[in-house]
């Protein structure tokens, strides 16, 4: 092996010493020990790599990203995880039986929020929105979405009067999308009056539902269904800000 071949191999040798036990590098490292010129080159290469790696490691993820991952992934888990639990737990069954009566009393109210098979679960979308980091903006995604993006950012437009949205077009426009409980949900961030808003859209069943507001840890969401879409709007500016643009 000549020195050029050794350099080629040693450039893949991580600066933290993680590859010390890897036989692939053994001969090249040994050659760097024996050859002073190669040894100097290797030491400089390692020092340079260590300096770059140290800088890269200091990049911190945006605040709230971890919480968003945990909240979102929790909602995306398949029900199989639940099935792994013991099937017969009397206390649970008793509690369930008691809950049925309560559920029956509210199911007619909640039904529109989970609008049938194939529809995105609105409550899951709202919970995801409440955990989504608002701090990760570099620019409004609405800027990339043509007329619809412009419509969202026009302060004269009430969001509840949103025109028909073509989800396939959003996809074609490379709109951001996340998976919530197995459903594709499009996420559009936009600004009005200097405040940030996130709008989440997914396919819903028929019918429409009145807006429902929720607040948690400084985030406010309003969720509703309209014209075949499940819609959730979130801001860190408070429920009044949502009502103002709704």
């Amino acid at each position, binding site marked *: 092996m000549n020195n050029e071949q050794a*350099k080629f191999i040693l*450039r*893949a040798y991580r600066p933290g010493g993680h*590859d010390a036990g890897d036989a692939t590098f053994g001969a090249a490292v040994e050659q760097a020990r024996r050859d002073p010129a190669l040894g100097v080159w290797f030491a*400089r290469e390692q020092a*340079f790599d260590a300096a770059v790696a140290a800088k*890269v490691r200091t990049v911190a993820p945006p605040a709230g990203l971890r919480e968003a*991952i945990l909240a979102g*992934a929790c909602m995306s888990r398949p029900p199989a995880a639940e099935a792994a639990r013991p099937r017969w737990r009397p206390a649970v069954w008793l509690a369930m039986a008691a809950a049925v009566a309560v559920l029956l009393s509210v199911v007619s109210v909640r039904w529109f929020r989970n609008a049938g098979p194939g529809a995105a679960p609105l409550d899951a979308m709202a919970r995801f929105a409440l955990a989504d980091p608002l701090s*990760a903006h570099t620019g409004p995604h609405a800027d990339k979405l043509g007329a619809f993006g412009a419509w969202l950012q026009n302060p004269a437009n009430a969001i509840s009067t949103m025109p028909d949205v073509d989800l396939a077009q959003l996809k074609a426009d490379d709109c951001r999308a996340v998976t919530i409980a197995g459903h594709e949900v499009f996420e559009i961030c936009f600004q009005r009056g200097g405040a940030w808003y996130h709008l989440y859209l997914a396919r819903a069943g028929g019918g429409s539902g009145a807006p429902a507001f929720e607040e948690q840890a400084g985030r406010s969401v309003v969720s509703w269904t309209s014209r075949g879409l499940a819609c959730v709007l979130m801001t860190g500016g408070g429920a009044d800000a949502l009502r103002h643009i709704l």
Partner: protein
Amino acid sequence: MGSDAFTQLVDANYAPLYRFALSLARNQADASDLTQQTFFIWATKGQSLRDASKAKSWLFTTLYREFLRGRRRDVRSTALEDLPPDEADPPAPAVDLVAALDAETVVAALQEVDEVFRAPLTLFYLEELSYQEIAAALDVPIGTVMSRLSRGKTQLRAVLARRGQGTRDNVVPFSTQQVRKAP
């Protein structure tokens, strides 16, 4: 996988995954999306992975595939054959110069490296994966990873040297200030 184990998996990996995503996507919002999406996929599919020790590689592989899937096939995509030929190995910028640059500048320099080299180079500097694991994550032969690391470093050195030169040009040496005289 229970919720505690999942939380541990997230805690151990979300920061390096985000850094990898930031290098690829070149903006915070898309990097956050990519990182979240990767864990969503884990939550729905990844738990079937039998060998838990491979979870980290799986996550990096999945993030990279999601990046490729979501990216438009536009001018940002650079084919290897479009790149200039490999240059002679330029001298590495002084280590103290790199140390003097802030992390944002170094990451920005990394983001200037052609995408085909940037992915393996970022994984290399994250130090999370071996070159074999990088090859598996990017679905390229081991020799290709080594070659791309070599060429990627060449590009990175050139960018850092340029940025470092800019930094130096903005600094007026103290001795120069002393000899200036008012007109």
